[in-house]
């Protein structure tokens, strides 16, 4: 049976005076999924989101919620609909004359009959989840841009919405925070099961948390589908936005984007003999949830990032190229190494990584237990051998299957130090 969209745009056109922003836009949002809307700046992404929440009305076309046009809803139906949605504004839209806890608790105070104590507890829990406990009584202007973003996130989630609209939640954040916020969105979405529509430029990082991608280009939705389908998408949009954004990403992290990783793989190996050998290594941070639980999203992202950086440095020096594949997994291709050579390179990597990979954290020896107030986590790695005619995904799957712990570290509960 075909899935029923929770929100659907049918031929939505929006004009401001004579300027057309959206021209017969059609797309669907499905329940329980994370959908990411990407597009160039000023192409109407925020305008699209504002139509869903009713801040803007379409000049033509309809927006449907579970098949019912929202412009035909009764007042009660409209209130029920809007009550399920939270909107996180691009510029946060925090009340600058209210403290963080007052901001976060505002929707509860104004729209529910909860007691003051309950509201405070719930707001504090949201503040704690977004790691703002130390600044709960400060005003937004006293916080950094990143903290304000997290306060807006806390306010958006405090009402337990079933649909959350995120308007560029990672804008103005450093790379660690960007991934931490995306990780947070993914974690909350998993935990609470809400439907998320996200505007983001964080390509390819946003692929890791998205079920579907919408591409807005030339006033229309030119693509809607899964991130994997988007990888194969051929359109001028790619030239204009993806290439620049992905290249930027490479400059920052030194790692290849998934698409460039594939392109490099095909370029390097298509010229090789069919019986030529190469090796693929996959790496993963095991127990990511444990790290998030004990040390928070920022610490988890720092570990993932440090691992990526170390992999790139180590394997890049011997001709390998690497890419981040999922939220906590990297893959490296060693195009001119067979399995034996790859194992030697991996052994060197293991030794170096244990000693220098995560300088702030203590590496645990075999059989060693973590200290009482610490927890442990592992880094996994696996190798597989491939041939040019074999799909890279299959080889990576083998490498995943072969993963074993290569290093164990201990981290202090609630902090980064040993």
């Amino acid at each position: 049976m075909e899935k029923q969209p929770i929100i659907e745009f049918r031929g939505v056109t929006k004009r401001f005076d004579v300027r057309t922003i959206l021209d017969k836009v059609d797309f669907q949002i499905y329940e329980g999924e994370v959908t990411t809307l990407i597009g160039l700046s000023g192409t109407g992404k925020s305008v699209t989101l504002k139509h869903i929440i009713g801040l803007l009305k379409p000049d033509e076309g309809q927006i449907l919620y579970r098949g019912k046009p929202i412009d035909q809803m009764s007042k009660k139906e409209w209130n029920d609909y809007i009550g399920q949605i939270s909107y996180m504004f691009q510029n946060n839209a925090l009340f600058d004359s209210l403290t963080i806890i007052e901001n976060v608790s505002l929707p509860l105070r104004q729209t529910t009959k909860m007691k003051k104590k309950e509201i405070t507890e719930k707001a504090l829990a949201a503040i704690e989840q977004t790691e703002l406990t130390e600044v709960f009584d400060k005003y937004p202007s006293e916080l950094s841009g990143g903290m304000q973003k997290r306060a807006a996130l806390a306010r958006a989630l405090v009402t337990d919405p079933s649909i959350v609209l995120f308007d560029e939640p990672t804008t103005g954040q450093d790379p660690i925070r960007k991934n931490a916020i995306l990780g947070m969105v993914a974690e909350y979405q998993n935990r609470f099961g809400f439907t998320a529509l996200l505007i983001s430029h964080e390509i390819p990082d946003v692929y890791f948390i998205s079920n579907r991608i919408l591409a807005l280009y030339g006033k229309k939705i030119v693509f809607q589908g899964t991130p994997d389908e988007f990888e194969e998408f051929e359109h001028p949009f790619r030239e204009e936005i993806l290439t620049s954004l992905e290249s930027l990403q490479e400059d920052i992290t030194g790692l290849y984007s998934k698409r460039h990783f594939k392109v490099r793989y095909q370029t390097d190996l298509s010229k090789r003999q069919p019986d030529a050998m190469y090796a693929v290594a996959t790496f993963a941070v095991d127990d990511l949830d444990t790290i998030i639980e004990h040390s928070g999203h920022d610490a988890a992202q720092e570990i993932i990032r440090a691992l990526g950086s170390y992999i790139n440095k180590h394997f890049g020096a011997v001709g390998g190229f690497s890419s981040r594949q999922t939220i906590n997994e990297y893959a490296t291709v060693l195009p001119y190494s067979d399995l034996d050579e790859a194992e030697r390179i991996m052994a060197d990597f293991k030794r170096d990584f244990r000693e220098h990979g995560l300088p702030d954290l203590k590496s645990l020896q075999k059989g060693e237990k973590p200290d009482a107030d610490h927890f442990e986590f592992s880094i996994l790695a696996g190798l597989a051998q491939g041939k040019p005619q074999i799909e890279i995904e299959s080889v990576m799957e083998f490498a995943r299957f072969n993963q074993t712990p290569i290093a164990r570290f201990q981290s202090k509960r609630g902090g980064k130090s040993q």
Partner: protein
Amino acid sequence: MAKNSTEHNSSDAIALPKPGNPLTWLFHPFGAHAVRVNGNLGAIAIFFLRAFIQIFHPKQFSAIVQQIYFIGAKSAQIVMLVGFFTGMVLGLQLYHVLVKFGSVGVLGTAVALSLIREMGPVLTAIMITARAGSAMTAEIGIQRISEQVDALSTMRVDPVGFLISPRIAAAIVSFPILTTFFDLIGILGGWVSGCLLLGVNSGAYYYRVVSATEMSDITGGLIKSLVFGLLVVTICCFQGFYTHMRTDSYGARSVSLSTTSAVVLSCVMILISDYVVTTFIL
């Protein structure tokens, strides 16, 4: 749809026929202006009614108290200071007029009636416009352009009820009280200049104040202050709330222009409505 939606299309965008002959060309701007003014008056009236109805929501109490503190308590000092010197000037000027007719005995009557009937309500309203009205416009305007008002709508909080209703309620409470303070301190100021400095008999001054002032003078003054209060707060809040719809500027500049418009318009409306209300009272 969008019961709480924000109107983003300019109210200026009223489709009027293109001028076809010189007569149309001559009157077109006036007609367009009249239509726009009419539209704005209607919008202000609806805006006020929406805000007024929501004053009685139980969650408003603490917000109203806060606004009474801001509009009322924090304006009290400046209102009383202006009231005192206004009374002194009145005492001084009227003394020199009355002395020519040998009627300095009615100085108390002249000072008290001038203050209670006219100057108290008008000057109090103008002072509150300058101090609190401009601040209201700027605050709401900034909240509008930084999307805080839209954020309220997305949280199912009616921005008119949340931002405007407490201010209207506070104006209803504060304006008459501040006007009363102004009148009392003004009468005291008149006594200082007339009696202490110029030698008019204190007993005669206060006797004339009490004997000449009737209840209708006091209620008339208080009705005026109430009307001015509602006008000032509605105009100032309206200007701030719809600052994003200005067609002559954007962003911070639109807030600045809205604040100027709010103060000017409030002062003009105070004086116009003063005449209208006086006509009905007398």
